[in-house]
């Protein structure tokens, strides 16, 4: 704290360190993402909390009435993963809606723009949070939670039916983890990209209340289409975006995302036109968000 600073004016000029003149684009991106994590700690706290709460409930159920657990929840591991991923999804939505709106509201956009970071880098770093960072975090937290569950259920002697045997009967632990990772990267990272792109666009544009601006237009389009043409293509499109491509929905059982995705090979997934259309739409939304960020002033 008490760094002696004997900077004599005048000698400054000669002793000034010429900083490394080049800062790579990836370095700027890294620090931009890090600063998002500093600001929005809910990105990792919320999924962690979801995991912790689930483990607490799981432990309580396990010690009080293992039989009840066995009946009530036939797939506790998948339920844990779904709960944590769901939390991550919700955090991603609220994060995206706030990211480019919040910096305008608190005027800090003037501070960020005073640094040599382009609008493109900024928008991409904010986009990376819901499509890369959150899926990876939720994946790690989900797998750790499942692992602790595994340890807990084998440690509690009464846990009989929920031990490693249960997992083993369905799939191995490693297999299950890989499934979660695959699901996170494909569905949350790629398939949902246009959803996050839309939210970022609204966040960059909205003069106020980004939440309403994000959800009202789809509602209005649905209503207008229904009244004017009596069709619901738009709603079908949204549902398709939320639930996933066709082969999934037909083979899937009881709407369990994990089951659905395991029914789809990477080959099938990457040859779905809907994926590429979605990515193109996401790119268009992001491009518009970059332009808007350049133009927009603090609110």
């Amino acid at each position, binding site marked *: 704290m008490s760094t002696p*600073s004997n900077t004599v004016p005048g000698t400054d000029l000669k002793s000034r360190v010429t900083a490394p003149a080049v800062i790579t684009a990836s370095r700027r991106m890294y620090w931009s993402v890090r600063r998002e994590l500093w600001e929005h700690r809910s990105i990792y706290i919320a999924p962690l909390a979801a995991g912790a709460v689930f483990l607490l409930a799981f432990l309580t159920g396990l010690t009080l009435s293992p039989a009840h657990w066995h009946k009530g929840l036939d797939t506790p591991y998948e339920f844990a993963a779904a709960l944590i991923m769901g939390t991550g999804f919700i955090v991603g939505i609220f994060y995206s809606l706030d990211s480019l709106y919040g910096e305008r509201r608190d005027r800090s956009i003037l501070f960020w723009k005073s640094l040599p*970071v382009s609008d493109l880098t900024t928008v991409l770093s904010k986009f990376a949070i819901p499509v890369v960072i959150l899926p990876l975090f939720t994946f790690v937290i989900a797998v750790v939670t499942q692992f602790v569950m595994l340890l807990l259920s084998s440690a509690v002697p009464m846990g009989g039916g929920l031990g490693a045997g249960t997992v083993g009967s369905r799939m191995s632990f490693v297999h299950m983890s890989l499934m979660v990772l695959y699901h996170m990267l494909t569905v949350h990272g790629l398939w949902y990209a246009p959803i996050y792109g839309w939210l970022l666009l609204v966040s960059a544009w909205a003069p106020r209340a980004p939440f309403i601006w994000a959800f009202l237009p789809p509602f209005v389009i649905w209503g207008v289409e229904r009244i004017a043409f009596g069709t619901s293509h738009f709603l079908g499109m949204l549902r398709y975006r939320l639930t996933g491509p066709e082969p999934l929905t037909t083979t899937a059982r009881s709407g369990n995302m994990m089951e659905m995705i395991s029914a789809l090979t990477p080959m099938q997934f990457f040859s779905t036109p809907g994926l590429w259309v979605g990515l193109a739409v996401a790119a268009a939304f992001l491009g518009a968000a970059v332009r808007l960020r350049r133009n927009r002033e603090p609110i």
Partner: protein
Amino acid sequence: MACIEARGLRKAFGATIAVDGINLRVEEGRILGLIGPNGAGKTTVFNAILGLTPYQGELKVLGRDPWTERDQLMRDACFIADVAVLPRWMRVWQALDYFAGVHPRFDRAKAEGFLAKTTIRLASKVRELSKGMVAQLHLALVMAIDAKLLVLDEPTLGLDILYRKQFYDSLLNDYFDRSRTIVVTTHQVEEIQDVLTDVMFINRGRIVFDCSMDEFESRYLEVMVNAEQLAAARAVKPIYERQVFGRSILLFDGIERQELAALGEVRRPSIADLFVAVLSNQSSAAQGGTR
């Protein structure tokens, strides 16, 4: 090369013209004060210079077009918009880390040196700091950047006089050298009078006065005239006249000191006095310019 060069710079918000065809040239190594009433267009000019707003006309800052090359421009230029823009959630060490991470000309050790002279702790959040400390922090960050151009828009707004004084002192002593350029606006004109090398007045989107401080000091003189000499003094054609405690104070442009000494007590006018004179002359129509 001029640091800032604008020709016919114009910006309108709907029917309101904020900047009305400004021509501007700021050479390297100057400290320019841009003085103007509220709503004169100062902030709009700054925003155009910093690439924060699109504009009409020609504008080059450090040889770049600020609107299309803002991120590259910010390697050589930095600005303090006003004290309220540092993100309130940020911790001091995070600001240092981030600057070191993204800014090629940021000298972290230097920033830490500046901060060590203050009571700011590295673990503090911006929201926990007082207004004066936030200004100190921002200044420490900016002064640690080896930039060519520093733009300050009301940097000391809302600070008490001690912090204001300190702010400009450290700017002059620890930062400014002849290779840098500083452009500053403030309403506390008196406090920066001795800091500036050049001064410009802006009113209703136009530059209405522009001169160097050397020229200002050699050209303008103020005389406190007694009632009996008033007629004689008025004959020398003052550019402005005001009353203080029943005595008249006349402002002259380009009259020799000896000539004025006979009329009363001669002294150097403040920028604020000249500013009032220039603006009142402007509004009382066709006074035939200021130069």
